[in-house]
């Protein structure tokens, strides 16, 4: 499997898109740290990149990669290799190259300029979101054979997770504001990995404001050890479950 992943990785690096992406991330984060007067502002801008650009690139790149290497996958299927192994190698190749790009592009500047709890939680969230959206992309592309449709679905997914879901939550929070909503906030945030990642970073960045909320629910729940475990666990589930479904579909699929 490692061998196959290595081929996939090599293939991705050769296409140079990933290198351009790394450079882009590196330049943006480096210049953000250089331009802004204080690092907290740079971190804030980076947060936007991680929550919006990163999922988009991750999901679109993975989908396009899947469709582009369709012939390679077909070729591999003619070999005595299990389908599970082929798809997993593809996934690991993509996920590794993307998170590698993120780690070099954003990780290095963050480690240089802002090596603290905020920076580290930013890196963790970035890597997790990259993997999660790659996994979602694999599920979406396995489901449809048509490339245009696949990309359309992934874009919709991205749109849903970064914008629509938050709008819905805002609506829920306002229409049920008379009820003790603090209790369902962990549930609401667990349903969207982007929100979960954002809250994870926010706990480090806006700790003073979060302590001000009447119930101090955020600090009590998300800030505790169980909360961190919850965040990490749910994010891992978000990476594993779509991939698991993709494997199920891929195993039964008529290629």
């Amino acid at each position, binding site marked *: 499997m490692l061998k196959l992943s290595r081929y996939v990785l090599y293939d991705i690096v050769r296409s140079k898109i990933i290198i351009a992406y790394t450079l882009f991330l590196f330049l943006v984060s480096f210049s953000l740290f250089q331009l802004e*007067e*204080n690092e*907290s*502002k740079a971190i*804030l801008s980076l*947060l*936007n990149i991680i*929550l*919006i650009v990163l999922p988009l690139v991750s999901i679109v790149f993975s989908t396009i990669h899947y469709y582009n290497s369709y012939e390679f996958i077909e070729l591999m299927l003619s070999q005595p290799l299990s389908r599970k192994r082929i798809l997993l190698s593809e996934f690991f190749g993509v996920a590794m190259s993307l998170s590698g790009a993120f780690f070099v592009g954003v990780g290095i500047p963050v480690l240089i300029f802002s090596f603290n709890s905020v920076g580290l939680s930013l890196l963790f969230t970035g890597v997790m979101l990259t993997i999660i959206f790659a996994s979602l992309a694999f599920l979406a592309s396995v489901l449809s054979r048509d490339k245009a449709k696949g990309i359309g679905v992934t874009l919709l997914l991205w749109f849903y997770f*970064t*914008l629509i879901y*938050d*709008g819905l*939550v*805002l609506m829920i*929070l*306002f229409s049920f*504001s008379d009820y003790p*909503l*603090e209790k369902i*906030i962990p549930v*609401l*945030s667990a349903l969207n990995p*982007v*929100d979960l990642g*954002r*809250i994870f970073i*926010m706990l480090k*960045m*806006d*700790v*003073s*404001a*979060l*302590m*001000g*909320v*009447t*119930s*101090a629910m*955020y600090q009590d729940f998300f800030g505790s050890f169980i909360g961190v475990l919850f965040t990490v666990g749910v994010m891992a589930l978000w990476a594993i479950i779509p991939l698991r479904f993709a494997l199920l579909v891929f195993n039964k699929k008529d290629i």
Partner: protein
Amino acid sequence: MRLLLLILLSTFWLQSLSRNITVAPNSSVNTLTKGLSIASNGDTITVKSGTYKDGNTVVTKSVTIIGEGNVIFDGEDKYEILTISASGVVIKNITFNSAGYSALKDFAAIKIIDASKVIIESNRINNAYFAIHVSNSSSVTIRNNTLFGTPKSEQLTGNGIHLWKCNNALIENNRCTGYRDGIYFEFVGNSVIRNNWSEKNLRYGLHFMFSNDDSYFGNTFKNNGAGVAVMYSKRVKMENNHFQENWGPSAYGLLLKDIADSHINGNTFLKNTVGIHMEGSSRIDIQKNIFKSNGWAVKIQASCDDNNFHQNNFIGNSFDVGTNGTMVLNKFDNNYWDKYEGYDLNKDGIGDVPYHPVSLYSMIIEQNPSTLMLFRSFTVQLLDKAEKMIPGATPENLIDNKPLMKSLKL
């Protein structure tokens, strides 16, 4: 010349009159009470090292009491240790342990009643109900003391340094930890609090009530239950203090309630839930302060008027200014806001577009705290941007017309 000689001689004579009495554990004078009984005004009582369990000692003579070595006065959790009701008393270098608790009387390790010119210096007070309690006294100096308490509940814990109905007091270089209020002022005038350190107290690091014409500077208030409260006072000067890490749903770096004609200069507000909370306050000049990494840098209620915020740095706060109404009678000018996104075409260091420090989302959160879940999300940023273009819900007049492009060197 002769007169001068006479004065000189008489002072020598007077000095030779003041005796030195020694209190030591294994001598005939083995308690402070015995020492006091043979002392007269102007004497010095030197207490040798040892532990003294003498219940309550009342000082009614103007004496200087100095501890030599490790002197411990133990209240055995039952007694008020020292009650001073004479003027000119000096208490120095003594450790007070375990003063008693009483629900009826405000028991203290050192209590000063109806006295003047008392000096309490370099003492250590451990586990008292009230540590130093001063009432109806003038010109009291409390300096270099370390007060350490084990806080229970707000009702069962007294204040570190408690002043009631005093004037011209000086509170300097004290360290106060684990009491209800670190320093408490009620009806205290013309007094100075400087370079104190007040940390981890149950309620306020410093609490002002009905105390006019006081000033405090160079103090550090850290991690107290609710920060610092200044209430119902006039002409208070607050300079170069540090307000730090006061966290909680109703914790403030500095709470101002019904304050008028005061100055807040050169202070640092770091990592508080709310930097300054203002209610019913008027004519306060807030200048050259640093607000950094607070939840809300300033919460200003609509009941405040004529307050002037200028030349402050607002850096890395979650929200800059919060308010509860659309009425704005306060001025915000020439401040540096790190969230400012305007431009400066004529390069005079002042932004050409006014800055709105109140964001829409800070108002939404005020109404519906659970929406904090979406803070910093893309949707919310869109909302905020739209509101900045066309202000609808946020107070239109709460603006900084001359926002600075670069932070001030403070």
